[in-house]
Every structure is written in C-alpha cells, then in structure tokens.
C-alpha cells in the first residue's frame, strides 16, 4: 500500500483518513488520505490530471463549502483542532490558511486596495498601519520596486507575473500560517515562473506551503516533500529528493519516468 514518510519535525497540518465526496457523486474523489504537512517547509502535490491533488488542496481552506452538497470525512488537524468540524469558523480559517490560484485573480481595484483588502476585512482602519503593512507585503512579494510609484493604479494594468505576485502579497499581508498554491505558474511565462518559484522558497521561513503542480521539475526545484497522488489516493509521500531518485512505489516510479500521465 501507500508509502508515507514519517515526518520528524513539527507539522503544520495532519491529514488522517480523509475522504472527500463531491455532491451527487457515488464514490469519494479522495480515498483514505493520511499525510503530515511539515511546518515551514514546502510540500508539493503531483500526479496526473484528475488525481485529486487540487481537490485535496481546496479542502485545507474548506473552499469546497462554497458549493453546497460536498461531503468531508475523516480529519484534518490544524492547531490542535479538526478543521472539518461543522463548528469551524471558515472566515477565521481562511485568514490562517491562504490560497493562490492558477490564474492571477487581481480584484478590480487599485494595487494598494488589492493588498489592503484582507487587512481591511480584519478591521484594520488605521491609515499608517495599512500602508506599512501593504508596503511590507509588497516587498516580501518582490513587487515593491515595480509598483511603489503607482499604488493607486488599477491592478489589472499589471502583467500576469506581476498580478500573481500581487496575489501573493495580498495573501501574505494577513500573515497566514499556511499558504496553498494551486498551480501558480501554469499561466505564466518562464521568467515570471522563476520569480514565483524563488519567492515561494523565500516564503517558507514564515509559512508552511503546499503547492499543487503539473510540472515535476517544479516540484523537484522548490519542494522539501513531495506527495504523489493517483486516482484519489496518496500513493507516496517522501523527501523530494528520495521520491524522485529512489521512489518506493512502482506507480510513482512509472509516473516520474513518464510511463503514464
């Protein structure tokens, strides 16, 4: 069966016997997944299309709750509580676990207002505090130099790579514990991709990161741990290097050597 590495360091999240079923589906899309997510590290999820990696990622901030009828089973432990509980405060959860999407999602407002959006939601009204934290977030997202003289401009005037970094700035401005990346570079050119990857690696000092990617090289370049998923199951979770060099499962080996996928 599945080969899941035992992580010695502290964990940000613990997934135990997790199952997820989409509304109206007969069988669960995710089956009995158990995996630790190490703190202040990058965990990559790879696997062929439809294997459930994005479905799993969207469970960590309960994104599936936006569409009624989906069912979670099992446990995802975060800060000592099961976030799948019906009592979980989703608004609070999503400020602790942020998300970056496949396509840049700049809101139709100024660059400043985009980054300040999450802060304002948390009730921060003080102007100097807002501008300090916006500046810090933009610096951390390596975007400050490019936009510092046009913070009031419409965010949709930025390039795709800049917009994606803006979304990262917006997500880290609220200082989450965990950041979820859903194929964050699949809509970007190689140079922007490099910039985002560099940024993701820098960010792990402060947040725990889970990244879904179609690109195995990307997983190998950025992540500390890699999970290989297939048909809704987690086949293998290991140190990235070990998983790519000496995979324990036959399926993993076949996938990373390009026999299917």
């Amino acid at each position, binding site marked *: 069966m599945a080969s899941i590495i035992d992580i010695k360091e502290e964990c940000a999240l613990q997934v135990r016997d997790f199952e997820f079923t989409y509304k109206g589906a007969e069988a669960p899309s995710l089956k009995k997944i158990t995996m630790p997510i190490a703190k202040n590290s990058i965990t990559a999820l790879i696997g062929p299309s439809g294997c459930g990696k994005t479905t799993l990622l969207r469970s960590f901030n309960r994104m599936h709750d936006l569409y009624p009828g989906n069912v979670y089973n099992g446990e995802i432990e975060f800060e000592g509580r099961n976030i799948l509980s019906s009592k979980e405060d989703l*608004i609070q959860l999503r400020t602790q676990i942020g*998300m970056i999407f496949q396509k840049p999602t700049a809101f139709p407002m100024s660059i400043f207002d985009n980054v300040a959006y999450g802060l304002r*939601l948390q009730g921060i009204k003080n102007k100097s505090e807002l501008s300090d934290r916006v500046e810090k977030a933009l610096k951390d997202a390596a975007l400050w130099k490019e936009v510092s003289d046009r913070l009031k401009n419409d965010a949709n005037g930025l390039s795709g790579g800049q917009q994606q970094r803006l979304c990262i700035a917006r997500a880290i401005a609220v200082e989450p514990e965990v950041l979820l990346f859903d194929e964050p570079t699949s809509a970007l050119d190689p140079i922007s991709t490099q910039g985002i990857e560099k940024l993701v690696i820098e960010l792990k000092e402060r947040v725990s990161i889970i990244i879904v990617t179609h690109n195995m090289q990307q997983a190998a370049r950025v992540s500390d741990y890699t999970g290989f998923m297939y048909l809704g199951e987690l086949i293998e979770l290991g140190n990235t290097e070990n998983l790519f060099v000496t995979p324990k499962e036959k399926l993993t080996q076949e996938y990373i050597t390009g026999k299917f996928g």
Partner: protein
Amino acid sequence: MTATQKRVIANRIVLTLSTLSAVIALGFLFWILGVLVMKGLSALNWNIFIFEGAPPGYAESGLRHALVGQAILIAMATAIGVPLGILAGTYLSEYGKNSKLAHTIRDISDIMMSAPSIVIGAFVYAVVVMPMGHFSAWAGAIALGIIMIPIILRTTDDMLQLVPGTLREAAFALGAPKYKVIMDVVYRGAKAGILTGILLGIARVGGETAPLLFTSFNDNFFTTNLNDAMPSLTVTMFNYAISPYEDWQQLGWAAAFILSMFILGLNILGRLVLLMSRSK
C-alpha cells in the same frame, strides 16, 4: 456560361440586394431623424423651457411643465426600478444560480419584458389609481418602474455572471463573508455593465406613453404635486400632435425632438460606458 461565371453573377445579385436592403432600412432611420430634426429644430425656442402649457393661440406657451413632469416621473421610476432590479439580479446570479426558483424568475422576467406596456398601465390603474380615486405621479412612476425592473434584472444577472468565479473564490479565500464578496468584488467587476443596463432601462421607459395615459394622466400646467395628475413629455406630445391647433402641433414637434435626443443620448452614453470599461 461556365459554373464559375454563374456563381460570380449570383454572388453579385445577392450582394446588391442585401446592400440595398440595408441602405433602405437605414434610410428610414435617417428619414425619421431628418424630419424630426427639421420640424423639431424650427419649433424649438427658449419659450419652450420657460413657459408651461397654455390654451391655443397664446404666445407664452411652452413645455416646462411636461419637461419637469417627465423628469420627475423618470426619477421616481428609476428609484423604484433600479434597486429592485439590481437586488433581484443579484439574487439570481449570486444566490439562486441554477435553482428552480431562479429559472422561474428568469422566465417570468423575460415574459414581463415583452408584455405590452399598456397592460402594465391597466394593472397599475386597477391597484393604485382606483383605490386612490384619482390619477397621480405615483401611479405613473410605479407603472414605469415595473417596466424597468425586468430590463435591469436581466442585465444585472448577465453582467454579474460574467465576473469570473475565481475572482469570487479569491475573495472568499481571504476570509471575506459573502456580502462583502458581492459588494467589493462582484459589483466592482460588473459596474460598467450594470450602469449600461440602468441607462438603457431609463431610455426604454423614457419613451413610454401608453402606461402613463391612465396612471399619471396628463396636465397642461406646471405641478410638482406627486399626488396629482402629472404632465409628461410623451402624453403631452400625443395631445398636442392630435390637436387641430397649429401652435400646439409645433410644440408637439418640439417635444418629439427633445424626447428623441434624450433617448438617443442615453443609448450612446450606455454604449460609451461599456466601450470605455473594455478598453481600459
């Protein structure tokens, strides 16, 4: 004659016929505008904006009463139709989505959009004018507001649905509650489209005559009393146009010209708003 030659000739005939039809169709539009501009411009003078209605033969007669009445009626109708239309459209796009109720509302709204406006006038006559016992600006504005609702509802619904779902998810992912997502992100993303819908809705009811005939009725004198019959440009134009008096007919042309320019202006403005938001 070869097959190719035949095809070339057939092509020319169809091209000529279709071009000709387009020219004729547009010709009518320009003919209407031409007559309107000629007759309307010659009837325009400052007195129209200064004086109210007067018996035929009076030099000091104008359309001030009808212009102000029309503005009041449209403003009230907008105040009724826009919030209802936008909120209902928001329900459809953001809450109802593909539910049975939402589909039923969309269907009913489409039927309402093609309902004869005089029927809506008759309805308002029955539920507002009869119980009140007299015509009123309220009744006229309610009739126009009802006509406006399905137009605004439909454009709002369509425009909100054009806002990408990932934008909503991104706002939710930052911990925004649903009403904030709608107000901060969805409305902003769709604001040009919604504004265009409002302008086109106003343009649509601005030219309505039938629903006003037995709701706000008409008045030849200036009034701002909302509980009383209220003059409108359209009904005034109708009354003056069918009158046998030369000077009243002139005023009718002036009313037609002003009304057309107003509606034309709204339509052009609506298109400009959309164009500008797209080129940004």
